[in-house]
């Protein structure tokens, strides 16, 4: 897969979870008022979302300061994707609606704003499952990402994206549906970057990818953030998410049950047990590092055939 030949394969500089000193984790919701200094970034307060009679989010407070990476962890069905839909204005495609609370970015409200207008305010989402336009070429997909910006800015964005993902330049005239999973994820992220977002919403970017490719994507997220884009990362791969983020939130059945600095969360017993699977050596390993030859790895539980 030539997509793995680009720059930035996750290296050992990645900070592994579990290495941070145990700190205080503030359980529950951050106290109202503590997010004021972040009003420049994304600021979600008391958010409640319903799909008809089903309440998917309950009183969610969350903040992504400008230039920061925040992670949202949680199991399937916890409401992670719903949270992103509420920000990106796509709840209506799923017959959902914000029933109370606010979503603000850069000081102006995003709740009730249609998806296309959210993009114009600098908030762009990379949807779960990549969802590239399979029948269009790679170049056309990138163009689709830049439809909301003027031509000159689109050209500059395109240069930046192709620098980040050289493989997309090689595949420019191929149909996006023919790319590998990793390449499609790169295209999905590249397509979102074409709009020049101030805040990038990433929904499970490493889902279904090989570990090396997942590490590559993680590294790319780091680069994107280093260039000044804030990131709200929704992930089931908690080890990766906590290594990337400065602040993290744990979502359970529609509520934030834990939030705090990512390093503190990574050190908390509950997170280690429930999301990092403490005791399994692989998950304690820094993201993107080679586990080493099989004979050097610590011995794992031996598999046994189950018989009735």
């Amino acid at each position, binding site marked *: 897969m030539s997509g793995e030949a680009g720059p930035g394969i996750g290296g050992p500089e990645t900070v592994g979870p579990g290495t941070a000193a145990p700190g205080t984790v503030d359980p529950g919701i951050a106290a109202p008022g503590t997010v004021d200094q972040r009003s420049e970034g994304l600021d979600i307060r008391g958010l409640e979302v319903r799909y008809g009679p089903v309440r998917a989010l309950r009183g969610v407070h969350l903040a992504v300061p400008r230039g920061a990476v925040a992670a949202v962890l949680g199991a399937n069905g916890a409401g992670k994707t719903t949270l992103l839909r509420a920000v990106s204005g*796509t709840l209506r495609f799923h017959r959902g609606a914000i029933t109370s609370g606010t979503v603000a970015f850069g000081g102006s409200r995003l709740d009730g704003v249609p*998806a296309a207008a959210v993009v114009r305010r600098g908030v*762009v989402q990379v*949807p779960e499952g990549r969802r590239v336009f399979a*029948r269009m070429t790679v170049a*056309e997909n990138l163009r*689709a*990402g830049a439809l909301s910006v003027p031509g000159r800015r689109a050209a500059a964005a395109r240069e930046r994206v192709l620098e980040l993902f050289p493989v997309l330049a090689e595949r420019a005239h191929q149909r996006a549906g023919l790319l590998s999973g990793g390449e499609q994820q790169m295209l999905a992220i590249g*397509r979102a970057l074409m*709009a020049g977002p101030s805040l990038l919403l990433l929904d499970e970017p490493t889902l279904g990818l090989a570990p090396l490719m997942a590490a590559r994507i993680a590294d790319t997220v780091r680069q994107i953030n280093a260039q000044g884009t804030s990131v709200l990362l929704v992930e089931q791969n908690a080890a990766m998410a906590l290594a990337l983020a400065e602040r993290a939130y744990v979502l359970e059945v529609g509520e934030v049950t834990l939030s705090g600095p990512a390093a503190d969360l990574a050190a908390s017993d509950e997170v280690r047990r429930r999301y990092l699977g403490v005791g399994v050596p692989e998950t304690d390993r820094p993201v993107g590092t080679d586990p080493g030859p099989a004979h050097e790895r610590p011995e794992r539980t031996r598999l046994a055939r189950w018989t009735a």
Partner: protein
Amino acid sequence: MAVFLELLVNGISVGAVYALIALGFVVIFKATEVVNFTHASLLLAGGYAIAWLHPLIGFWAAVAAGIAAAALVGALVEFLILRRAHVGSRGVLAIVTIGVDILLTTELTRRIGTEVLALGDPWGDRVLRIGPVTVAETRVVALAVAAALIVAFLLAFKFTGWGVAMRATAEDAETAALMGVRLGRVSLSAWAVAGALAAVAAMFLCVFPTPGLDRGTAAAAMKAFPAAILGGLDSTTGALAGGLIVGVTETLMSGYQSELAFLGRGIGDAAPFLVMIVILLLRPSGLFGTKEPARV
């Protein structure tokens, strides 16, 4: 042989006009996944505007006004009715378009009455002779204009921002919205473009050898429906191929009617639908379609 060539040229020319109408069906279906049964009345509206205006402002200005009028009617149907009809199923929306079509057609046929309205076109009944083949000038112009419009349309679809937005929406509307595509505008422009194409088609359907616009003209528009279906409802290439197949089949069957007397009179009108059925039996998504048209 000369007869066959004449019929073939006429068939291709009529087929190109059907392709314009079918293209309208396809554009609306791609942008909104709605099968637009209002198309026949859009065509009638465009034709009526040309017939009504040409004595006042001249033929070419009337054509421009007719195209604008049909585009406006299309946009209004989208904006006032379909956008506000919050129904879950596209099938229900298709039925809504049938209702709108009946309303519009009833009003337009009431205005047209029993008259046959001439469009005042400059070609009249002049014919061109190329070797043994005799073709009406209107047919040659129709072929040239339809071909030019189709090429321009396909290029726009492929290369302009509008075309990219349209194709992105057709493939995945939610993701297109996440890219900043304004779905309302895409849908509105699709209806307007379909209306404009229908008006051009109306002009060519109502000039020589047809005597003019009458209340039956809307029925001609329905022939573009098998064209769109057999080509594949979501394929612009399919609309083109479907239009040509329907045009050529209809013209050849009508032209050789005396040899085909055992099939009964009026086989030319039925033939496009027979071809459609045969093609759908062999290829359920049409010749170039990628989705099941059965989602109607």
